[in-house]
């Protein structure tokens, strides 16, 4: 018995880490804030093959499982990849689109659609159809890289088997992993800053007020990750399999949000400026914590299951 990422998932994550170290810097994210769709980043992602993680090999994908998927999403979160990363990865298995990064797929919502402004295609899962090219009425958002908008445009019905449930579940799960990556990045920034920032003659990271608040927040993320792993593992004997992704999203949303609060406070005024990078990851965290279902909504799913399953 072994509980953890299999070697292939670890290898994928490490490879992606190297790609993103140069392909997705804070400058890249700031570019997205200014409306750049980051085509070069997506080409890199495409040539690395990550877009096709969940696409069968006979269709040119990597044909990997969801453990590799969450490993990739966590790493993408750490880099703060702008644009519909999770959405594209969960959509491509259902669509007949290129896997080279030229297709960026947003997923349509009843209200405004996240990443609509940067998407080449919009996947309307309810009607199982694809909108291309999308026409977007953009909205102002706190995280400007989110590019929310109302979507219209020519729509084509899809012939592929309708797997709304799978897309919904994978979207929440991948976003949970992405959130934990964002949290890890914010913790790293905070540790680095509080180690060197001196006040009262000592590094502020040596104060228990900073240490203990940060540790309590990190505990939340450390215990959310195994929930993500279990949701991705699909243990056939797991009677709770159907709600694992909800548990993962609920825990990751709360944990990552708490990390964003604590890291901002630990930084003091510097964290409160847009010139410093922390806000890029904090604001994405706030958006994703409520995207693909809020923590409260996913806990309600778990509660219903516990009631019915008696």
């Amino acid at each position, binding site marked *: 018995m072994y509980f953890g990422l299999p070697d292939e998932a670890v290898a994928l994550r490490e490879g992606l880490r190297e790609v993103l170290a140069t392909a997705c810097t804070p400058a890249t994210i700031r570019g997205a804030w200014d409306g750049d769709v980051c085509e070069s980043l997506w080409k890199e992602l495409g040539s690395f093959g990550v877009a096709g993680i969940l696409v069968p090999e006979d269709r040119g994908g990597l044909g990997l499982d969801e453990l590799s998927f969450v490993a990739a999403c966590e790493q993408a979160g750490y880099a703060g990849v702008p644009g519909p990363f999770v959405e594209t990865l969960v959509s491509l298995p259902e669509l007949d689109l290129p896997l080279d990064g030229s297709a960026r797929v947003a997923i349509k*919502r009843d*209200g*405004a659609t996240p990443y609509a402004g940067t998407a080449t295609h919009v996947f309307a899962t309810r009607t199982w159809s694809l909108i291309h090219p999308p026409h977007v009425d953009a*909205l*102002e*958002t*706190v*995280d400007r890289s*989110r590019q*929310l908008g109302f979507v219209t445009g020519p729509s084509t019905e899809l012939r592929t088997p309708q797997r709304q449930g799978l897309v919904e579940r994978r979207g929440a799960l991948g976003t949970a992993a992405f959130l934990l990556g964002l949290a890890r990045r914010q913790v790293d920034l905070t540790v680095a800053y509080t180690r060197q920032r*001196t*006040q*009262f003659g000592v590094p*502020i990271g040596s*104060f228990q*007020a*900073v240490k203990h608040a940060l540790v309590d927040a990190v505990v939340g993320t450390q215990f959310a990750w195994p929930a993500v792993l279990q949701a991705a593992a699909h243990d056939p004997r797991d009677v709770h399999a159907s709600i694992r992704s909800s548990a993962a999203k609920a825990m990751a949303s709360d944990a990552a949000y708490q990390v964003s*609060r604590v890291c*901002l*406070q630990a930084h*003091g*005024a510097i*964290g*409160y*400026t*847009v*010139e410093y990078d922390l*806000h890029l990851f904090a604001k994405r965290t*706030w*958006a994703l914590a*409520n*995207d693909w279902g*809020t923590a*409260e*909504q996913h806990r309600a799913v778990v509660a219903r299951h516990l009631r019915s399953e008696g």
Partner: protein
Amino acid sequence: MYLTESESEQAFRAEARDWLRANVPLGLPSGDTADGFALHLDWEKKLYDARWAVVSWPQAYGGRGASVWEWLAFEEEYYAAGGPQRVTQNGIFLLAPTLFGFGTQEQQDTLLPRMASAQDLWCQGWSEPGAGSDLAALTSRADKVDGGWRINGQKTWTTRGAFCTHLFGLFRTDSASERHHGLTYLLVALDTPGVTVRGFARLDGDEGFAEVFFEDAFVPDSAVLGGVGTGWNVAMATAGSERGLTLRSPGRYTATVERLRTVSGIDEDRLAQAWMDAEAYRLFTLQQVSNEQAGRGRAGESSLNKLFWSELDIRLHELALDALGADAELESPWSKGFQFALAGPIYAGTNEVQRNIVAERLLGLPRK
């Protein structure tokens, strides 16, 4: 317990309510942008012309000589009517109390009326790149020269500095001194040669912050507020009123809770808690004023006050954003207010510093 307002207090409240409801401009843009700031100035001048800008000041300086109770009533009515944040607040709420306490007659006569009428716009010069929570670590110098002082150094995190005309702050006037010794409180016009202001953006994207650089900037002796070398004590008086009720009048939170009640899908249990908390803050403030007027003010009480409002402000906005769900990330007064609220536990002395103060001064726990 004599909570009932006197007839004159009631009359004052009624007059303020009527005027505010008739005149408060709704939907002003943020005052922390260049365009917004100009519109806010119009509003400030309107307040001044109707003598509502500084109600607690003497008539001679443009006020109404209102009691602190009347001031609290005015603030309640101001926010209940949807009044915007005061772009003049650093001057009228933070510097003015210090001027009244430490200023010369001439300083008061010249500076206060121009402040009340928003001709002079004041920003703070406390923090420096190396001195945040640890304010006593500041290194900006003012060296004595004939007829005044020559300033060198840098201030930062200066709220609305890019839009202000004057700065008040602490400078080291005794180069041999350390920590909170040898500091002097100076009043500096930002158009003084050698002073450079660079605005930069806050978390919410507005250019609400500024860095202020001093290169051999000369200020006259009359720029000294309080005695030379006594700056720390003078500044602490301001810091006191900053942490105290003049920074955040309860009316802000009771008004926010009333807005929360109109948000659909809000958690009722948490809304009840929010209402109780805003009320508790209002009542705590009344108690604090009563204690101070009776000479029973408690050490660390203003830190308790700051800890509570700063965390309450965040909770109130989290409650709204949770109800908005997926729409919470859209630009809105709630998402804007949430980002603004996040500054509460950081500025005016981080909450970590406030907890130390309460622990040591109110509870009597050992410093080391």
